[in-house]
Structure formats: C-alpha cells, structure tokens
C-alpha cells in the first residue's frame, strides 16, 4: 500500500550487527545502566512517614464550607446531586427556622447531606455545579475503612469546623463571592 501521509519513517528494519549477535555487548551495556542506578538516590516516597503535597486543585475528599461567620453555605438546591454521575449524593432540604440565621446562610439548608464515598468517583462535577460555593473537593484523602457503612459521610464529617478551616483558596474554580 502506498504511503498515506508522506511522513512515514521505518523504524524496525535494522538487522542485527555482528556485535549484537554476540549477546555480550548489549548485556554488558544493560548491566552498566542498572549498575549506575545502584548509586543513584532512591526516588521513593516513604508514604505514611512522608507525604507529598498534591496539586492545589487535587480532587480529594469533599468539604461543605461555612462562610466567615460560621454559617453553612449550602442551600440544598440539589445541583450537586443532579450533576453527580455516580449518584452518590443524597440530601434532604429543610426551611431555615427563625433563630437559625447564625447556622445557615440561605433560607433553605440541607438537613441531611450524605455522600457515599465508596460510590464517589471524585470527578469534581459537584464542585463545579455548586452555585453557592458550598461544596469543594480538597486535597485531603478519604481514609480507608473496615466497614462499608463507614463510607456514608454525613454532615458531621463533611461540614468543616470553624476551628479547623479547610483552605480552598488555591482552587482556581473557587471564584469570589461579593457580599450582598
């Protein structure tokens, strides 16, 4: 068949030379390469003791953010659940009562917000879908567990605590919300 692209390059037609037929030169060459690696510094991350910084945009464990005053951002609009290809998010919305303004920023809030971490594929679509800068994926990892039930992350595990805030400012898709 003629050439289809006019830029082909044959790469595998070199016959073995006599030296190559002798086995030894290539073997010794290969052994020299491995030998040089003996004295090279190892490239291993000793994981539990050492950790590596992930990219700032890494898609790890989710967090439900609070705003500066400690109110939950989530308004239970359900976009994240719709956007989730794994259908791992479940939520129950509730109306904010009088006197709960310090807890929830919007009029509606998620009474139950559960993510099945075993289903979740960490694609980041929920973060993208969220119009209220409530849910973010972070560079933390979801720990392994012994029981399947432990992977249903409710609000207790997802909502950040005010004492230990999770920094998501490096994520480019964060955006800025100007206070109204």
């Amino acid at each position: 068949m003629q050439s289809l692209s006019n830029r082909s390059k044959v790469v595998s037609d070199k016959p073995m030379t006599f030296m190559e037929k002798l086995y030894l030169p290539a073997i010794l060459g290969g052994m020299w390469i491995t030998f040089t690696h003996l004295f090279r510094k190892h490239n291993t991350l000793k994981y539990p003791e050492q950790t590596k910084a992930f990219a700032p945009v890494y898609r790890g464990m989710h967090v439900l953010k609070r705003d500066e005053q400690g109110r939950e951002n989530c308004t239970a609009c359900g976009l994240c659940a719709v956007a989730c290809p794994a259908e791992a998010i479940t939520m129950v919305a509730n109306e904010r009562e009088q006197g709960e303004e310090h807890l929830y920023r919007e009029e509606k809030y998620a009474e139950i917000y559960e993510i099945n971490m075993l289903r979740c594929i960490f694609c980041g679509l929920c973060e993208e879908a969220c119009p209220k800068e409530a849910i973010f994926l972070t560079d933390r990892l979801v720990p392994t567990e012994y029981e399947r039930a432990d992977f249903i992350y409710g609000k207790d595990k997802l909502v950040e605590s005010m004492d230990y805030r999770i920094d998501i400012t490096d994520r480019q898709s964060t955006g800025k919300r100007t206070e109204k």
Partner: protein
Amino acid sequence: MGKIEDLQTINGEGYQLSRLEHVLATARANSVWPLPFATSCCGIEYMATMGSNYDLARFGMERMSFSPRQADLLIVAGTISKKLGPILKKVYEQMAEPKWVLSVGACASSGGIFDTYSVLQGIDRIIPVDVYVPGCPPRPEQIIDGIIRIHELVKNEPLRRRYSEEYKHLLHDHNIETNE
C-alpha cells in the same frame, strides 16, 4: 467483617494476644504477599504503587503471587462484573488460610459509577472484604493506607481465629467452601 473490635469478640478468652502470638502476628503482618486481581483502572494505579515512587516493597509486598495458593492478600482492584464474579470467588476459595481481602476503588467496593445491569454492586456480595479503599481510582497513598489497615488487622488477629465458629459462619454466609 474485619474490624479489630470484631476480633476481640471472636476471641472468647479476651482480646489480649499472648506475647508469642503477638510476635508471630507481627511477623505475619510484615510478609503479606498480595495477589493482584486487577481488572481495570485501579490496576494501573496499583502498578504505580508497585513502582519506584511508592514502592510497596517496603512492606515486604513486592513479591506478587499470581498463584492463589501462595497469596495472603487478595487485592481486588477494578470493576467486577457479574460475569467475573464466580471467577473472583473461585480465586478466593483457592487461597490458603489465612487470607485477607482488600477492595480497591469504587468499582470493586460498590460498583462506582457503573450502576448498570452488568456490574456487580460491590464484591462484598460474594466474598468477605476486610478493608475498603475509596477513590476512583485511589491514589497510591490510599492503597498503601489500605494495606497498612490490613497489616493492623493481621497484627491483631489471634492465630486461632481462622478455626473459630464465627469465621466458619462468615464463610458460610458468603457461600464459600473452604475444604479444598
């Protein structure tokens, strides 16, 4: 199935391992040979875990046993379809006691995004799973995390657990025949 607390209850005479048992169990934990049952994406991340950057060898686990007879840990990484289920079960049955199972990734643990007619919704329906690793696929760090959890289990497992009634019951629940 495999919580450390469960081990306490299984071992009727109290949880305290004797000193000898403790030494033996620790030794055992340092020599867990994996059988990688890698079907898809997670298998590639498992390969990365084996590679230089994460080096599973540090845990004494680089000796992969593709023969189930020699393996201690079944690492199920990737989607298990209904067609594959019986094969996985058979591999589990062929393994010699004591054996552990690590379910890596969303697909193996719960089906992940593949909530479809052909995919098994979690391998714990056919074999008992000791540790679940979330993620799709999990980072090598998470896989190592899961392995460390397995090691914890091994370290705390009394030698006689595998002969206990509870264990037989567990296998019976999954319809697994052991006497090969």
